[in-house]
């Protein structure tokens, strides 16, 4: 051993080994820390998103609540969640689904799957009247009135539609809410055919839900019988493409089973181009068959209505640029998005420039209508636009947003998203006149980027500033499941009321004087006309017999903003909230004898706690 240390060369060998090892270890640590995210610019971001107490946001963000059945309302740029609009599910907080009217609207369904909110439009611009939402779960479509932010109509289950995913998209003058079937089925509903017969017996459907211009009342206008593809998302044309509507489709293989594999074997699926104005004419000309009460048109028998546009396989979004000239479609497994020229599409249709046909429908020649393939990045899903001629495409696989230019087709910026962005929304981004300024990324995963709330994690929405050349991440918000799509509208376009004026309350059971409040026995039970006002529920006691059908007509006679009153009835599973000037009706059978308290559930005043009464149910 003595010799070993006398010999400097042996020592060098050891030193060398250790140096090499340490060097490599340090190197690997350094490369990991280099990938940490840049969190600079906090002050700037905070200023851009700060809405001081007393101030209000510049924009409304309406985002879908997915399988919660709700629509959520937030302010932009603060990203504060302000309100929840219940649509397809009961919501005790507002009493939705407990009173007679909303119970009848919900019918037998306890849930819905809200995907794509669509603001009503006039001349291709949001007009702030209504918000339409689809129900992918139970094939319905609903209208929310933006005058009072309440769900006013639920249409459906719509006949022949299965999985109302490809909606709701409105035409530029809100003539129609357009929607398409995600899951083809044998028609009419009620027909059973084995999935082995999928390709021949199953059918997809594209629906035009007609909207009454004055009231917004929806009815099923017409439907188009489609091959059994899965129809995903759509958009209505505008400007030069007005009169057309576009849907993406997947599984044009018409495969069954493990679709993850079976539906992804072809390199291309289709964007379906529908000339809805021509469909309207054909329907008026009576070229339809009636299936389950709906006039249905067969596009194979009636050429000129539907064309297939080849698109990279498994596309999700198809989006029309604000000027209506470009159709942007992307296969969600590729790294490019395709911009198709509407002008070229119309020319190709004129010239019958088809590359073939499938299921009797002509396929437009891809090369003839393609304007550009934009190398946006991996997993392009959905595209939105600003006022500077830029497009923004969400990239699911890459978890990023790509910014690129319409016309030059250059990708100019990219920003990473935490995590897995689905849809995105820019301010007024679906209109002919977007505002730019802000982009909201609706992310599928939040991956614990928030205070830990256990395994059931919220989704995340991120606010991105797009006023500058480089996109800037401004704010992270966390939202309830599950924002599939959102629209952002300038706040001053909406003029919601805060109080229902007494004069407009036409409910025949409304009363405005405490002295009119009373319980009356009718042929089959008891009807109680009830007044809710600070701080009494009148009458303060009601006596009924066990087995009576009991009806409470509840009028909140307040005419002051935010003076809501609730009516909760213990152990009868009833709670409603009545807004100022509103009348709601609850009905139930008094099948449990005894004494049950009712009380105001929505805090109202200093003596809110005293606002209570008793229902006495006398046993048989």
């Amino acid at each position, binding site marked *: 051993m003595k010799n070993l240390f006398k010999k400097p060369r042996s020592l060098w060998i050891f030193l060398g080994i250790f140096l090499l090892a340490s060097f490599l270890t340090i190197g690997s640590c350094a490369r990991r820390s280099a990938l940490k995210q840049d969190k600079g610019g906090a002050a700037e971001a905070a200023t851009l998103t700060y809405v001081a107490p007393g101030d209000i946001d510049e924009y409304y963000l309406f985002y879908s609540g997915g399988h919660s059945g709700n629509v959520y309302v937030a302010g932009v740029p603060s990203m504060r969640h302000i309100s929840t609009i219940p649509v397809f599910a009961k919501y005790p907080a507002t009493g939705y689904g407990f009173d007679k009217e909303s119970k009848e609207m919900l019918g037998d369904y306890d849930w819905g799957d809200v995907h794509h909110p669509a603001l009503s439009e006039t001349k291709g611009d949001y007009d702030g009247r209504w918000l339409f939402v689809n129900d992918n779960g139970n094939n319905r479509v609903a209208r929310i009135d933006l005058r009072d932010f309440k769900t006013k109509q639920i249409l459906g289950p719509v006949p022949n539609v299965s999985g109302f995913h490809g909606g709701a998209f409105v035409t530029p003058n809100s003539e129609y809410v357009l929607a398409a079937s995600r899951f083809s089925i044998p028609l009419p509903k009620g027909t059973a055919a084995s999935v082995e017969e999928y390709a021949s017996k199953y059918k997809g459907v594209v629906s035009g839900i007609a909207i009454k211009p004055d009231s917004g009342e929806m009815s099923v206008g017409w439907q188009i019988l489609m091959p059994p593809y899965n129809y995903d998302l759509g958009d209505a044309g505008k400007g030069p493409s007005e009169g057309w509507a576009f849907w993406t489709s997947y599984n044009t293989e018409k495969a069954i089973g493990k679709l993850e594999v079976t539906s992804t074997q072809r390199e291309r699926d289709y964007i379906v181009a529908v000339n809805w104005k021509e469909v309207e004419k054909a329907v008026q000309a009576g070229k339809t068959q009636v299936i389950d009460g709906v006039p249905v048109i067969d596009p194979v028998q009636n050429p000129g209505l539907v064309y297939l546009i080849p698109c990279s396989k498994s596309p999700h979004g198809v989006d029309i640029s604000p000027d209506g000239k470009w159709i942007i479609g992307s296969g969600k*497994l590729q790294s490019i998005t395709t911009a198709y020229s509407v002008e070229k599409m119309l020319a190709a249709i004129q010239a019958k420039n088809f590359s073939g046909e499938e299921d009797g429908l002509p396929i437009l020649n891809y090369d003839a209508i393609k304007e550009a393939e934009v190398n946006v990045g*991996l997993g392009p899903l959905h595209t939105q636009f600003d006022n500077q001629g830029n497009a923004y495409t969400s990239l699911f696989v*890459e978890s*990023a947003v790509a910014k690129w230019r319409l016309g030059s087709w250059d990708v100019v910026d990219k920003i990473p998203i935490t995590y897995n962005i689905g849809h995105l929304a820019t301010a007024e981004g679906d209109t002919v006149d977007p505002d730019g300024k802000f982009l909201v990324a609706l992310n599928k995963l939040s*991956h614990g980027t928030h205070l830990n709330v256990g395994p059931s994690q919220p989704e995340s929405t991120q606010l991105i500033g797009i006023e500058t050349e480089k996109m800037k991440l401004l704010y992270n918000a966390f939202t309830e499941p599950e924002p599939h799509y959102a629209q952002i509208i300038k706040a001053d376009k909406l003029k919601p009321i805060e109080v229902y004026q007494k004069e407009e309350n036409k409910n025949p059971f409304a009363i405005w004087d405490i002295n009119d409040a009373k319980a009356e026995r009718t042929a089959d039970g008891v009807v109680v006309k009830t007044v809710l006002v600070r701080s009494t529920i009148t009458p303060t006691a009601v006596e009924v017999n066990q087995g009576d059908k009991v009806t409470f007509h509840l009028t909140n006679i307040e005419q002051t903003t935010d003076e809501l009153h609730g009516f909760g009835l213990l152990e009868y599973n009833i709670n409603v909230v009545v807004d100022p000037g509103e009348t709601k009706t609850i009905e139930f059978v008094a099948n449990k004898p005894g004494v049950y308290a009712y009380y105001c559930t929505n805090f109202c005043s200093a003596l809110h706690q005293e606002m209570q009464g008793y229902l006495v149910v006398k046993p048989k």
Partner: protein
Amino acid sequence: MVTEEAQTAGANGSHSWIRRFLVQKYDFLEQPIPLISRLLIIIASLALLFVFLFPLWNMTFFSNQYTDGLALDIYAYRLEGAKTPNRDDLREINSLNHYIGMRPLLESDFSEFVWLPFAIGGLVLLALRAVVLGKMSKLVDVFVLFVYFSLYSLWSFYYRLHSYGHNLDPTAAIKVEPFTPPLFGEQVVGNFTVYSYPDVASYLFIVYGLLLLAALVWAWRGYKRDLRASEAAS
């Protein structure tokens, strides 16, 4: 120590130095291993035993979704993804790879995990055998075997990577060009940037090899010194 034959050949000119070199080497191989060299070999063997405690190789996959990286440690006898109560990286890597039709990484598919530990044990035993039997040729044997083993293992690892990246299920949802994940260094694969580098156990292999080499060099230098001394004496 130099034979008569060699001296005769030396007189014949150009072949003489080759002959002398070979003869000298044969002679060296018959020499006993000096003490210091034996100690170095023992340290080398001990170092090799620690190979089982550390990963041989590390691959880390970074993307926007995984800014902290999905980590895969390859040991001599098993695969181990980084694992926390909130994430199982091996499972995660396999479920992501299925989209491009890559076969799942399963320990049971790797015959390496059987023969590598056996071979490593063999290298330890052969090194100790050289210490006990004490002849230079035994040390040369184990060193040559080690070099062969290292090169073969690297090739085998490369071949594994190549075949995982080239035998992709043709029915996969996402079709990618066949590729070879990086053996050493950094590579962009889809939305991931992959870093692949040797880890502690590989450095232990290097230590083992270098120590054996040091033992050889030490013995050779001693041998040459003794040779010069005896030449000077004669």
